């Protein structure tokens, strides 16, 4: 197996990760052959619908996948291999790598005050602090996320969902000194005005402290708010990798295109009214018995015929669309240039691109043998 060269500066390097559940003879392959790198200070999004394997992937990164799962492949943080070393995983978990969970209500112990739960985290990750310093640190953490310091004496049920999500963000970002925060749908259970507040808080904390982030979500808008680049996941595999501008301006995979079209766009209300929303037919494939070819082939509007049903396409670089090239050349002032796709940034798992890449003679890198 030839792997794409991993730069030494990568904070997180995941190679060939697989997570399978159930009977080893006929496993449910929730995550298949995932490669993921995250550089220092970078924010990477993973987008997919229910059952795509995105949450399973995120949990497996910290060894939170449960005892029934078989994990294969490599997970390296700061060059240290964690995948089959529970002791190394425990040293990293919560410290170098922390996590924000989707449901803030169940993430806290209902029987203890917020102050005591956060205090215990601080004691674990900052053992040098004395009792009073620890208390002051907890108060400062809560203050930073907009919770009055006297609320340390409150129990979880006395907080709203939005406030508890702020407390969990305090725990993940501020209790230790994480280099990487994993966030699993951090705003899904919140109202939209509170979601906007949480987005602002996460953005400010990252700007201030510079940690990397992996954000898992089904919400394409959230990725635009918080990430530098994005992987699109379908049926356990990454099917596209692109920049944020690439995601919206020139999505490369037919699934990404269909996903974008099926949600109405507030900026194009007058055009879409009166018509029906474009939809994908059918549903996601059974992960215990996936189709032999491209997993999206049965629902694909851009199906090429036999090859899609027969062969699994590789994740290959996509030659940039003319539109994307134009966008790259005329970046609006103040726009971070790293959000614009460059050649090689965009990769897709689709036979259409495989055909055009070969005929166009584009260099094909990082191909699995």
């Amino acid at each position, binding site marked *: 197996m030839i792997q794409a060269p991993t730069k030494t500066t990568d904070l997180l390097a995941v190679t060939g990760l697989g997570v399978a559940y159930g009977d080893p003879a006929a496993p449910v392959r929730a995550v298949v052959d995932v490669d993921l790198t995250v550089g220092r200070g970078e924010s990477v999004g993973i987008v997919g619908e229910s059952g795509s394997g995105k949450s399973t992937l995120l949990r497996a990164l910290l060894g939170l996948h449960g005892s029934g799962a078989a994990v294969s492949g490599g997970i390296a943080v700061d060059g240290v291999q964690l995948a089959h070393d529970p002791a190394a995983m425990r040293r990293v978990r919560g410290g170098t790598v922390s996590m924000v969970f989707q449901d803030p209500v169940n993430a806290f112990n209902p029987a203890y005050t917020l102050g005591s739960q956060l205090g215990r985290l601080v004691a674990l990750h900052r053992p040098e602090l004395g009792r009073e310093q620890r208390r002051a640190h907890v108060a400062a953490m809560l203050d930073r996320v907009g919770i009055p310091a006297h609320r340390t004496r409150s129990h979880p049920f006395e907080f*709203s969902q939005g406030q508890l999500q702020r407390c969990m963000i305090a725990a993940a970002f501020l209790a230790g000194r994480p280099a990487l925060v994993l966030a699993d749908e951090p705003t899904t259970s919140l109202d939209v*005005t509170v979601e*906007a507040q949480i987005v602002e808080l996460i953005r400010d904390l990252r700007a201030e402290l510079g940690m990397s982030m992996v954000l898992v979500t089904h919400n394409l808008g959230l990725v635009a*708010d918080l990430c530098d680049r994005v992987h699109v996941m379908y049926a356990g595999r990454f099917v596209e990798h692109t920049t944020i501008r690439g995601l919206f301006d020139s999505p490369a995979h037919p699934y990404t295109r269909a996903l974008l079209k099926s949600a109405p766009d*507030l*900026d194009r209300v007058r055009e879409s009214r009166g018509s*029906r929303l474009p*939809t994908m037919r059918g*549903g996601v494939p059974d992960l215990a018995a996936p189709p032999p070819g491209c997993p999206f082939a049965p629902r694909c509007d851009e199906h090429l015929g036999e090859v899609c049903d027969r062969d699994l396409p590789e994740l290959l670089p996509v030659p940039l669309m003319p539109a994307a090239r134009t966008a790259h050349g005329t970046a609006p002032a103040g726009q971070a240039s790293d959000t614009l796709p460059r050649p090689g940034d965009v990769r897709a798992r689709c036979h259409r691109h495989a055909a055009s890449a070969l005929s166009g003679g584009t260099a094909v890198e990082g191909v699995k043998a």
Partner: protein
Amino acid sequence: MNAPDAAEPVIAADNLSVRFPVHTGLRERLRTGRRQLHAVDGVSLAVRASETVALIGESGSGKSTFGKALLHLETAHAGAIRFHGDDVTAATGDRLRELRRRRQLVFQNPYAAINRRRLIRDVIAEPLRYHQLGRADDRRARVHDLAGLVGLSPEHLDRYPHELSGGQLQRVVIARALALEPEFLVADEPTASLDVSVGAQIVNLFADMRDRFGLALLYISHDLPTVAHLADRIAVMYLGRIVESAPAAELVENPRHPYTQVLLASVPRRDPGHRRTAPARGEVPDAADRPSGCHFRTRCPLAMPVCAEQVPAAQVHGEHMVACHAAT
């Protein structure tokens, strides 16, 4: 059925209020008296045949309670419900039973709305059985027709709910709601528990059914982009009151209430250059302890002294209603 008149609303709420008692300790009750939670506070809204009215707002705004009150699933404390112009607020017995047949509800969570131990065919036939419509083989044929109508295949009918996906189950709930050929349908967050691509199918199905049967549809949601796509009119609710209502495109393009503006600014955009900032402070206050005057003033970027003293009156400009002291 009454003579169809395009201008006559199928259903209308007239200053409708729903209150719930707040259970507090004895000491609290002795000090402040019995408190009441004003879930719905003087809401007027009408839905015509073939029309979709959307009700949007955050959790706790009272939008679901209002939808239930229109169906007599919550007791109206004040105000009136009119069905084809008749005051049906106090309907009971056979009259209420007939009204239940003509007004139906699609719930948010299809898993909770279906008896898991019954076959899909029995789930869909249940309202027909309850209202004693048709003989057994008529009902059987009707269930087949309904399944086809909502995009289920006949083999789904002999399965159990756990064998279907969330999107398929929501189709079952819609088929059950349509079984009695209702004139008015309340859809309460029908796509909230579904994936985006499946939600789009359900939104399309509602539009198809509305156009095909001339349904009056009240679509309750917090999802502004979907509502702006589907609905004819949008009413924005905050802590029990409608603060703004207008034709859908007009509301999105020319929002006049600060709360509507905040909601619109909070929606994520598909633009990497767009940096979402939080336009409103804090969260929705406790509905049992609402701020005086304009309920939104504690979070409003435009709040003035008058906002604490007076409830803003509804200003109507054509089809655009707004209740705000700052809007002119």
